C-alpha cells in the first residue's frame, strides 16, 4: 500500500507502485489544475511539489514533474498541487504576482509556474539557486517570459525578508495556506518507513524510464532505488568523495562542501535538464541510461571515478567508470546488480577542472556535445590529465589516447594543438537530430580548446585556433 498526503487529503492506495502520479491526480482525484503538456518532463505543466520530512521534523519541498513520477516515490510524502496552494480567500503572493504582471495569457502553463515558484519560496536557501532557475523546467508559449520575470522580481523582493525556514512566515506572507503547519505531524503519523512493496524494475528518479517506457511501467510495481539504505548519501572521506547512486543532481548541488572543490559546479549543473528533473534524476540512472551524452557520466569520467556495484547475493565489485560503458547503450552490469555509489578523488591545489556543454537550447536540452577536463600541472608539465567527451561516439567517451599523448608533456599551445590531432582519431560522431557529424567534430574541437583557453588563457587563446 502507498500512503501519502495529497494537499490536505490522506491517501491510501493499492494501485501498482509504478503508476504515474499525474494520472492519479487528474483521473482518480479529478484535480485538473495540474496540466498535461508533454508527458516527457519537458514542459513543466504537470509540476507538483513533493515534501518529505527531514531529520529536524520539518518538511523539505521540491518541485517535480508528476508525469514522470511513479507513485511509489511519493510514499510518505506531502504532494501539493495547485489546488493545495489555493487560499480560501484571495490569491497567494505568487499567484498575485503573476496576475499583476500579466504573466498569464492562455493560462495552460500557469499552474505549473505557480507551483514551481512556490517550491522556490519554500526552499531553505533562497539564495543558492536563483528564482529563474526554479522555473527552468516550465515552458510558456504565450508570454515570452518577460512578464513572468517581472513577477519573479516581485516575489523575490518579498522573499528577501525571509531569513529562516519558517512555515509561519510563509503563511503570513500568503505563500502557502495555513494547513501547511499540520503537515509535519501528519507525515510523522504515516510513519513512512513502513516499506512499500519493492519488486520489479529498479527506478531511480524515473526520468529516463518514464519517458521511454511509461506504458509498461505504469501498470507494474517498481523497485524504488531510494528504498535502499544509504543510497542517497553524499560524503567525503579523507580525500575521497562518495556519492550514493540514488543521489539526485540537486542533492549533489546541495552538498556544499563540493563547491569548495568545484567553484563552478552550479554553472555546470544548471546546464543539466531543469530544476524539476534535477530534483528527480539520480546518478545511477544517468550512468545506467548510458546515453552517449549523459552529462553526469561525462563529468565523472573526467574525475576518473570508480563505481561500486552490488549484486543480490551481497557481493560487490568496484570498477572504473570508464570501463563501465561497453558500446551503444551497453554497460557492464548483470541482472539484479545495482550501482551502489560512485567515488572519486577530490582535486588538489595543482588540479584544474572544467565542464562544457553545448546544446541547441542552452538550458533544458540534451547536449549536442559535452566534455570535461581534469588536469594537474606540475612545473609546467602536464602531470595528469583526464578528458571526456559526449555526443562523439556511441558511449560517453573517455579520451584515452588524447590523455596519454598529453601526459608528461609541457603545457604549451603547440602540444595542445598536436593532441587535437589525436583526439580527432578517437571520435566517431554521427549525424542526428542534435547536429551533423561535421558540426560535432567542430564542436568537440571547440570545447577541447575551450577547456584550455578558459583555464590557461596565457598559454592558448582563441586566435590560435581560428
Amino acid at each position, binding site marked *: 500500500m502507498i500512503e501519502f498526503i495529497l494537499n490536505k487529503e490522506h491517501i491510501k492506495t493499492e494501485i501498482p507502485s509504478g503508476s504515474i502520479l499525474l494520472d492519479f491526480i487528474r483521473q482518480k482525484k479529478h484535480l485538473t489544475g495540474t496540466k498535461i503538456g508533454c508527458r516527457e518532463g*519537458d514542459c513543466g505543466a504537470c509540476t507538483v511539489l513533493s515534501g518529505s520530512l527531514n531529520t529536524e521534523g520539518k518538511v523539505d519541498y521540491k518541485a517535480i514533474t508528476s508525469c514522470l513520477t511513479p507513485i511509489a516515490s511519493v510514499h510518505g510524502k506531502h504532494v501539493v498541487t495547485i489546488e493545495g496552494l489555493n487560499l480560501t480567500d484571495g490569491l497567494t503572493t505568487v499567484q498575485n504576482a503573476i496576475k499583476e504582471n500579466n504573466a498569464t495569457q492562455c493560462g495552460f502553463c500557469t499552474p505549473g509556474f505557480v507551483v514551481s515558484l512556490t517550491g522556490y519560496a519554500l526552499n531553505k536557501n533562497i539564495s543558492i539557486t536563483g528564482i529563474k532557475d526554479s522555473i527552468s523546467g516550465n515552458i510558456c508559449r504565450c508570454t515570452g517570459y518577460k512578464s513572468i520575470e517581472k513577477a519573479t522580481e516581485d516575489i523575490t523582493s518579498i522573499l528577501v525578508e525571509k531569513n529562516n525556514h519558517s512555515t509561519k512566515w510563509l503563511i503570513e506572507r500568503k505563500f502557502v495556506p495555513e494547513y501547511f503547519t499540520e503537515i509535519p505531524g501528519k507525515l510523522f503519523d504515516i510513519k513512512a518507513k513502513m516499506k512499500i512493496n519493492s519488486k520489479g524494475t529498479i527506478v531511480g528518479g524515473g526520468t529516463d524510464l518514464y519517458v521511454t517506457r511509461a506504458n509498461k511501467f505504469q501498470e507494474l510495481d517498481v523497485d524504488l532505488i531510494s528504498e535502499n539504505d544509504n543510497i542517497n548519501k553524499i560524503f567525503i572521506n579523507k580525500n575521497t568523495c562518495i556519492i550514493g547512486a540514488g543521489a539526485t543532481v540537486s542533492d549533489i548541488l546541495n552538498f556544499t562542501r563540493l563547491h569548495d572543490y568545484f567553484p563552478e559546479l552550479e554553472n555546470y549543473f544548471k546546464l543539466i535538464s531543469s530544476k524539476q528533473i534535477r530534483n528527480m534524476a539520480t546518478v545511477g540512472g544517468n550512468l545506467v541510461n548510458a546515453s552517449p551524452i549523459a552529462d553526469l557520466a561525462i563529468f565523472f569520467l573526467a574525475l576518473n571515478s570508480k563505481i561500486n556495484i552490488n549484486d543480490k547475493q551481497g557481493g560487490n565489485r568496484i570498477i572504473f567508470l570508464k570501463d563501465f560503458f561497453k558500446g551503444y547503450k551497453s554497460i557492464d552490469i548483470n541482472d539484479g546488480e545495482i550501482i551502489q555509489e560512485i567515488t572519486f578523488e577530490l582535486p588538489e591545489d595543482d588540479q584544474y577542472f572544467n565542464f562544457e556543454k553545448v546544446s541547441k537550447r542552452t538550458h533544458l536540452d540534451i547536449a549536442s556535445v559535452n566534455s570535461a577536463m581534469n588536469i594537474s600541472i606540475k612545473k609546467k608539465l602536464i602531470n595528469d590529465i583526464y578528458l571526456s567527451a559526449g555526443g562523439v561516439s556511441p558511449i560517453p567517451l573517455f579520451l584515452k589516447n588524447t590523455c596519454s599523448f598529453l601526459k608528461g608533456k609541457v603545457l604549451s599551445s603547440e602540444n595542445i594543438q598536436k593532441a587535437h590531432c589525436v583526439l580527432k582519431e578517437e571520435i566517431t560522431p554521427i549525424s542526428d537530430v542534435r547536429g551533423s557529424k561535421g558540426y560535432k567534430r567542430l564542436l568537440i574541437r571547440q570545447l577541447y580548446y575551450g577547456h584550455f583557453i578558459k583555464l590557461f588563457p596565457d598559454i592558448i587563446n582563441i586566435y590560435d585556433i581560428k
Partner: protein
Amino acid sequence: MKNIDSINHVQGKSIFIDDITVNHGTLYGVVFGSPFAYGKITKLNIEDALKIEGVIRIFTYHDIPGVNQIGAIIQDETLFAESEVHYVGQPIALIVAETEKIAQKARDLIYVDLDEYDPIIEVSDAKEKQQFIMPPRTFKLGDTKAAWNNCEHIFEGKATTGGQEHLYLETQGSYAIPQENGNIKIFSSTQGPTAIQKIGAKVLGIPMNKIEVDVVRLGGAFGGKEEQATLWAIMTALAVYHLHLPVKLILSRNDDMFMTGKRHPYETQFKIGLSGDLKILAFEADYLQNAGASADLSPAITERTLFHSTNSYFVPNVKATVYTCKTNLPPNTAFRGFGAPQGIFVIEAAINHASNKLNIPAREIQKINLLKENDEFPYGQAAKDVELTRIWNTAQNNFNISKLEKEVSAFNNSNELKRRGISLTPITFGISFTNTMMNHARALVHIYQDGSIGISTGAVEMGQSVNTKMVQIAAKVLSVVPERIKIESTNTTRVANTSPTAASSTADLNGKAVQQACDALLKRLKSTAAANLKVKEDMIHLRDEAVFIDNEKTSLTWEQLVWKAFANRVSLTENCHYSTPKIYFNKAKGKGHPFSYHVYGLAITTVTVDCISGSHEVDSVKIVHDFGKSMNQEIDNGQIEGAVVQGIGWMTMEEIVFDEKGRLQSNALSTYKIPDIYSAPNSIEIIPLETESNDEAILKSKAVGEPPFIYGIGSFFALQDAIRAFNPSYKSEFDAPLTPEKVLLGLYEE
C-alpha cells in the same frame, strides 16, 4: 484592466477541454495514423486490435455517412485516408475504447499493408515534378524587366525559412456528447467553431443545425487550431453519431506533432536592383512554399506572402510568384503571421545581401526605401497613415541607433571570446482577412433584469485576451463596472456563421459588433430613463452605473434603470452584425484594397555570440510600435513580447527535421526546442507610438496579434552581423533557423 481569466488561471481553475467533467459512459479515442509518407493501402489490419477487451469500435472512412471530405478552400483532404496515404501521421482510423490506455494498446496492434511510393519531401523536388496544390500566384507592379536596365546594382540570392511547430501548450482535443434527436454537441479546442459545424455536417450528412460547437477557451493556438482542430472534433462527432455515447479525444503531444501541420517552410530565389543612391528599383522573388499533402489554408497563406513581399518599403517594380508545392508532409497551416513573416524574411535577406556586397550597413538601404504616404503596394492599395518615418525617428531619438552601433563595435574590439551584432527590422502588416467574405462578425448581448450582462460573440479566447477587450468595450459603452459582464462561451447556436478567430482581426470585428449592440441597448435604456425622468433623451447620460441629466447625477441607478426598462417591456437583448467597410480584392487581377488598415513598427535587436561554442544570447529588442490608441496597453505589450520571443524561436532554434522517408525526427519537446526563460531576450523595451489610427480599429486600438512576430526576424540578421565581426569570410547564407550549429560553422568557415 487585467485579463479577466487571470484569477482562475493562476489558481488552476480555468477549464480546458481535458478538464471538463466527463459524462457517464464516456469513451476515449486514439487516432491511428499512417506510418508511411506515400503509398497505396492494400489492407488495413485491425482484427487483433478489436480483440482487446474494452475496445468498442474502430472507425475508418467506411463509417462516414456523408462525404469523406474536410478541405476548407480546396476539396482535397479526407477525414480518414481511403486507398492512398499522403503523409506520415495521416489519420486512417479512430479507435474508441473504454479508456485511453486501452485505445492506445489497441493502436499498437494495428498495421497496414502498403505499396510504398517514393515520397516528395523537398519543394525543389515538387517543383521539378510539377506537384502543385494550385497554379502559381503572381503579384506585379510596374515592369521589373524594364527596370533592371536602370539599376546600378543587381544582386541575386536564395533565402530559406524552416517550418515551425505551433506548440500550443494544450494539445488538440475534442469532446462530443450526444443530444436528443441525433443532435451532437461538440466541445472543441478550436479557433473556428463554424468550420467544425459546417464540415462536420457535411461529413455526417446532416444539417448544420444538428451540430452545436462550444468553445470556452484554448490553451494557445497561434493558427494551429484554425483549420486543424476540425479533424479531431469531427472524429468524435462521428463516433457519437454511431455509438450514441460521449467520446473524448485528446491528442498526445507526440501524435499532435506527427499529425498536424506547421508553419510553411519556404525556399526563395530573389533578385534585387538598386539605383546608385540605394533606392530599390526592382524586386523579383520566386517563393517555393512547402504546403504539405493538401491545401488546407495554403492558398490564403500564399496570398499573404505576396501581400507582404515588399514589407515596409516602396518598390516601384515588383514581380513576386508563389509556387504552392505539394509534398508528402502533413498539410502545413496557419501560424501567426500567415505567410507574411516568410515573405518579409526574403526582402530583408535581399537587402542584407545587397548591403553585404556593397559593404554598407543594411539600415541605410532600409531607411531610404521606407514607405511614404500614398505609395502603392504591389496589390494596388495605397499606403495610408504611414508611420514608418516617424517610428524610425522615434527609435533614433529614444534609443540612439548610432550609439548602439558604436557600443557594438566597441564591444567587439575589446572582447576576445564574444562578438555582438545588431539589426533593424521595420514591419508593415495589413489587417483584415484577405478573403473579403470573412470580414464580418456578430455579437449577442443580453442585459438581464437584475442588471447583469451576458455577451456572446464569435471570438475565441486563446490567451490573447479578446474576452477582456469585449468586456472593456461593453463596460465603456454602457458605463458599468466590468464585474457586471460575463463573456459566454463561443457557441454556434448563439452566434452563428462566424469567421475563425484569426488574422489579428477578431477584436476589431467582434468588438465592433459588441459596440454596436451595446450602443443600441444604451439608446433604449436612455429613452426609458428620459421617459421616466421626464426630460429629453439627449440630456440623459449614463456614467458610473448611474443616470445623469447632463452633468447632474440622478438617483436612478443602473439596476433600477434596467428593471424599469424590463417592466416597460423594452427588449434588453441585442444582436448586432458588423462587416468591415471599404475592403475588396480582385483575385484575378491581384489588385484591390484588401486591408482596412496597416500596423507599422520597428525593432532594434542586439545579440551576443560566444565564439568558442557558437551559442548566443539576445541582449535586447527595442521596439517602437504603432498601437493606434491601445485600449489595453499591458495586454498589448504582452502580445508583443510573446510574439517577439516566438519569432526569435523560429529564427534561431526551432528546427523541424524530417528524414528522407518523411518521418518527423523532431517529434517531441526533447528534440524540438522552443524558447525557455533563458532564451528570451535579456530585455524587451516597447515604446508605444500613439497614432491617429483608423476607425476600423476597435476604439482606434490597432490589431496586435500577428505583426510583432515579424520583429523576431531581427535576431537572424543581428546574429549574422555578429558572426561577420568574428569571421570576415563568413558567407552569410540566408538559411533560417540560424541554430548554434550554423552559427558555429559560420564562425569558422573559410
